[in-house]
C-alpha cells in the first residue's frame, strides 16, 4: 500500500494504483475523457491533469503511478488553469452543435466544459470537419464531434473482442472509424454509445427522439437473454424510448447486449392489446368476460389430467406461480416451463443453474463450452469470459459447430457429445475448471444423456468440489430459470411439454410459451395463449389473453445463475392488456378457485415460500458442490450439436417484432457457423 495525500486528505491505495485512483479514493472528482475504469489507459485526452509535489509540470493522473508519500493537488491554480487550457484545445475542433446533438444533457464534454472550462476560445481559424461513418443500423456517427479519446477503439478490441475500430491517418487528419466501411460485428456494440464521452457515437434509433430530462427513468431487468442485465428503461408517456444498462458488478458490470438494448421498438408493434376468442374457426375481438367465459366453459368440461399449462422463456415468476397454483386448483399436474423441450433435470437446483456465477468466472482457469455459442446466447457473460482470458493462464475448449468465433481463442474439441472427453486432461490440470453447457445442447432427443455426461465430466475433472462448483447451464431467456425454481414441471403423473403438445391434454394454457413450432400442437387441442405479441403461437390460439411485456409490469426474473431480480413497470401495457399474474388471479376468482393472493406483496410472499431464491432478491447463493451424484441419464444417440438461436437479432417475440432488429438481421444474417451448413 502507498500513502498518498490528496488535497490534504490522506489515503492508502494499493501499489501500482494511478494518481487518479488515489484522488477518487480521497473523494476528489477528476475530469476525464479517455480514461475508463474497464479499459486500458490511453492518457491522450490530458483532461485529468493534477499537480504532484516536486513534479515540474502537471501530470496526467490516469497514467501516473502513485508513490508512497506523494502529495497531490487537484484544485490548485495550476490545475485549474491546465484544465481550462486542455478544454480550450479539445473544443478547437469540436462543433458548437449542442442544440442539435443527441448527447446534449448527458455529455461529458458539455458537463466538463461547464465545470472546468473557461468562458471562451481564442481560436479564430477554420475548424476541421470529418466525414461521418456508416458502422451499422445501431450506431449513428457524427465524427466531427469526436475528440479522439479512443475509448471506442479500446472497447472494441478489449471488451468486445472485435477489433474493428481504429484511428487512421494522423495529426489533424486523424479519424476514428473502421477505415473500410462496415457494420460493426459485435453483439455489444451498443455499449459504444455509452462509453463515447461526446456525441460522436449515439443511438441511431434514438436519434432526435428526446432529451434526457424529458424521460421517466425506471430501473429494471433485461430478459431477452438469461444474463439478467440490470437496465434502466427510459420512457416518455406510453412509449419506451431507449434502454441502457445500469452497473451491477456481479452481473453485467456496466455492459448490455444489443438485442436487449435495441429491441424495444418491438414493444410497440404486433401487440396483443385486447382479448380474442375463436368463433367459427376465426379469432374475433372479445371482452375480458367473454374470453374468461370461453376458457371457463372449456376447462370445466374437462378432467384435471386433460388440462395442461406451458410457460415460456419470457414468463415472469409471479405469473408462472399463479398459473401453477391455478393448475393445481384444477387438479392438473400437467405443467412444464421447458417450452423448448430441453431435458433439464429440476431435481436439484445445481443441475440447472450457472453455479460458478458470472463473477465466479473471474476465478476460473479453464473452461469447456459445450453446445453453446456463448457470444450470441449471452454476449455480456461472454465478455466476462473474454475478460478472464485476457488476463492469461486460462484455457478454453469448445464443443459444437465449427467456425464459431467466441472472440477469444478456443481449442476445438469436436461437434457432438462424444467429443467432450477430449478436453478432460486440460480441465483436470486446472485448479478451478468450469463446464458451460448450453441449454441448446439439451433441446435434443438425448438431452438427458448430454446433461448427465456433462455433469459426469465435471465430476471427473475436479470441477465439483466443496468450495468450487464448476458445472454451469447457460439458459437463453430471462424467464426460463424462474419457472424451474418454482417447480413448474410435471408433478406426480403429470405430462411434460412434449406430451401435452402431442395431444396429451385437451386444453393447453400457454403462458408466453413461444419456444416451439405451433404446428406441433395436436389438432383439436383448445389453446389459451397468454402473451404480449401476436407472434406465430397466438395464431394457433382459441383464446388470446393479452399480457404485459417485461417493461410493463412489476415482475421478478431469475437469471441463469439463479439470481432473482425485480423488473419494474416503466409504461402501462397497451389497450386492455394486463399484468399477467393479475389475469390469472382474476380468472381464478371467476371460476371459484380464487388464488390466495391479491396484491404484489402477497404473491411475492408466496414466491418466497416456494423457493428461497425469491427471498433473497438480487443475491445468489454461491457455494461448492455438496453432492456429486449426477442427474439421471437417458439413452445417448449422439450427433452434432445444433445451436439454438439461428439469428442473434431475432430470437424472441419482442425482437422479432422490432424493425431495428429486422434491419440488423438483414445485415448480419444468421450466425456464420449456421450459414456454413
Amino acid at each position: 500500500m502507498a500513502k498518498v495525500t490528496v488535497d490534504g486528505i490522506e489515503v492508502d491505495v494499493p501499489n501500482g494504483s494511478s494518481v487518479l485512483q488515489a484522488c477518487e479514493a480521497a473523494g476528489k472528482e477528476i475530469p476525464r475523457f479517455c480514461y475508463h475504469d474497464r479499459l486500458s489507459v490511453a492518457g491522450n485526452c490530458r483532461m485529468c491533469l493534477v499537480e504532484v509535489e516536486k513534479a515540474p509540470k502537471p501530470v496526467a493522473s490516469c497514467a501516473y503511478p502513485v508513490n508512497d508519500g506523494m502529495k497531490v493537488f487537484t484544485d490548485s491554480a495550476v490545475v485549474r488553469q491546465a484544465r481550462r487550457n486542455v478544454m480550450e484545445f479539445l473544443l478547437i475542433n469540436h462543433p458548437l452543435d449542442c442544440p442539435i446533438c443527441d448527447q446534449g444533457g448527458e455529455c461529458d464534454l458539455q458537463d466538463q466544459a461547464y465545470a472546468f472550462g473557461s468562458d471562451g476560445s481564442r481560436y479564430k481559424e477554420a475548424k476541421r470537419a470529418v466525414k461521418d461513418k456508416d458502422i451499422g443500423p445501431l450506431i449513428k456517427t457524427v465524427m466531427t464531434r469526436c475528440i479522439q479519446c479512443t475509448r471506442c477503439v479500446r472497447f472494441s478490441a478489449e471488451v468486445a473482442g472485435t477489433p474493428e475500430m481504429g484511428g487512421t491517418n494522423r495529426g489533424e487528419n486523424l479519424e476514428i472509424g473502421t477505415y473500410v466501411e462496415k457494420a460493426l460485428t459485435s453483439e455489444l456494440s451498443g455499449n459504444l454509445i455509452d462509453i463515447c464521452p461526446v456525441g460522436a457515437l449515439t443511438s441511431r434509433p434514438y436519434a432526435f427522439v428526446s432529451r434526457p430530462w424529458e424521460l421517466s427513468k425506471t430501473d429494471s431487468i433485461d430478459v431477452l437473454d438469461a444474463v439478467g442485465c440490470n437496465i434502466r428503461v427510459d420512457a416518455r408517456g406510453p412509449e419506451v424510448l431507449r434502454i441502457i444498462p445500469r452497473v451491477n458488478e456481479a452481473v453485467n458490470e456496466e455492459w448490455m447486449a444489443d438485442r436487449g438494448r435495441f429491441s424495444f421498438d418491438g414493444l410497440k408493434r404486433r401487440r396483443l392489446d385486447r382479448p380474442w376468442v375463436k368463433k367459427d374457426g376465426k379469432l374475433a375481438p372479445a371482452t375480458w368476460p367473454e374470453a374468461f367465459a370461453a376458457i371457463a366453459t372449456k376447462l370445466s368440461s374437462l378432467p384435471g389430467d386433460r388440462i395442461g399449462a406451458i410457460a415460456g422463456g419470457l414468463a415472469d415468476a409471479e405469473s408462472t406461480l399463479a398459473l401453477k397454483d391455478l393448475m393445481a386448483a384444477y387438479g392438473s399436474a400437467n405443467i412444464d416451463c421447458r417450452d423448448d423441450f430441453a431435458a433439464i433435470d429440476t431435481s436439484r437446483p445445481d443441475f440447472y443453474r450457472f453455479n460458478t456465477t458470472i463473477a465466479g468466472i473471474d476465478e476460473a482457469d479453464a473452461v469447456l463450452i459445450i453446445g453453446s455459442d456463448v457470444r450470441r446466447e449471452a454476449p455480456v457473460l461472454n465478455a466476462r469470459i473474454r475478460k478472464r482470458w485476457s488476463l492469461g493462464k486460462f484455457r478454453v475448449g469448445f464443443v459444437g459447430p465449427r467456425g464459431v468465433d467466441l472472440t477469444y481463442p478456443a481449442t476445438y474439441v469436436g461437434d457432438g457429445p462424444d467429443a467432450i472427453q477430449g478436453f478432460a486432461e486440460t480441465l483436470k490440470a486446472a485448479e478451478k475448471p468450469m463446464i458451460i453447457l448450453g441449454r441448446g445442447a439439451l433441446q435434443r432427443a438425448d438431452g438427458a444423456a448430454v446433461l448427465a455426461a456433462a455433469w459426469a465430466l465435471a465430476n471427473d475433472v475436479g470441477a465439483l468440489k466443496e468450495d468450487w462448483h464448476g458445472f454451469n447451464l447457460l439458459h437463453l431467456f430471462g424467464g426460463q430459470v424462474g419457472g424451474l425454481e418454482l417447480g413448474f414441471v410435471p408433478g406426480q403423473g403429470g405430462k411434460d411439454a412434449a406430451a401435452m403438445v402431442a395431444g396429451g391434454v385437451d386444453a393447453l394454457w400457454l403462458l408466453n410459451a413461444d419456444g416451439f413450432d405451433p404446428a406441433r400442437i395436436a389438432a383439436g387441442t383448445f389453446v389459451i395463449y397468454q402473451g404480449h405479441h401476436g407472434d406465430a403461437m397466438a395464431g394457433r390460439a382459441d383464446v388470446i389473453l393479452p399480457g404485459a411485456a417485461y417493461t410493463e409490469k412489476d415482475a421478478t426474473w431469475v437469471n441463469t445463475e439463479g439470481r432473482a431480480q425485480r423488473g419494474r413497470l416503466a409504461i402501462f401495457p397497451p389497450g386492455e392488456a394486463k399484468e399477467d399474474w393479475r389475469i390469472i388471479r382474476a380468472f381464478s376468482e371467476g371460476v371459484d378457485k380464487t388464488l390466495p393472493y391479491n396484491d404484489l406483496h402477497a404473491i411475492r410472499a408466496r414466491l418466497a415460500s416456494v423457493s428461497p431464491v425469491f427471498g433473497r432478491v438480487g443475491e445468489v447463493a454461491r457455494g461448492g458442490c455438496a453432492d456429486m451424484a449426477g442427474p439421471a441419464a437417458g439413452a445417448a444417440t449422439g450427433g452434432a450439436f445444433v445451436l439454438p438461436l439461428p439469428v442473434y437479432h431475432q430470437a424472441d417475440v419482442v425482437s422479432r417484432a422490432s424493425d431495428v432488429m429486422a434491419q440488423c438481421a438483414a445485415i448480419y444474417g444468421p450466425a456464420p457457423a449456421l450459414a456454413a451448413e
Partner: protein
Amino acid sequence: MSKHHHHHEEPVSFAFDAESEAQIATILKRYPEGKQASAVIPLLYVVQKQMKRQTDSGWVPRVGMDAVAERLEMPPIRVYEVATFYFMFNTKPVGKYHLQVCGTTPCWLRGSDEVLRACQDHAGVKHYGETSEDGMFTMTEVECLGACVNAPILQVDDDFYEDLDYDRTVKLLEALRRGERPAPGSSIGRLNSAPEGGPLVLTDVPGAGE
C-alpha cells in the same frame, strides 16, 4: 493529405510474389516468436515495392494491407492504422517517379521553392499530392529528410538528389522522363557532404590530399 481526392481503382486481390516471400522470410526472423506483428512496417514496404515491380506504381492497396494482416495474424484495422499514419506508405497509386520535395527550414532557406517551381514547370504537377497526366510523376511535400548539409533535397522514390537548384532539377526531371536514372547524391559533384571543390581544412594533416 492531399486536398485533391482522386478516386482510384483498388485491385481486387493481392498475393505476395516469390521475391516478396523471400524478403518476408528474412524479415520475420528478426522478431521473437509471437511478436510477429512488429514486422508490420517492413511488410508494408514489401507490399509497396512489389506493387512498384508489378505496376510501376509504388503504393499499398487495401488488399495489400489485408495480406499483411493475415500474414502477421493481426486485425486488419491495426494494419490500416499503421499504413495511414506514415506518409512513406502511399495509400493510393503514385506515378512512375515519386518526387518528394523537402520544404523544411534548411531546404527552404537553401532554395527548395526553386525545386518546387521546377517540378511544377517540368513534371506536370501543380500541387502537392498530384500525379501528372502522363502518369510519370507524383509530387508530395515531405518534412525534413535528414540531409540538410546538402540542402535542398528532392527525394525520387528511394534516392536523394542533393544540392539542387532550378536548372539542375529540370535536368534531373528530363533525364527521368527519358528513362535514365542519374546517380543519386550531390548534383554539384560534392563527395557526400564534403565542401564544394574539395577539402578546405585540415589540409596540412600528414597524408591528407595524397
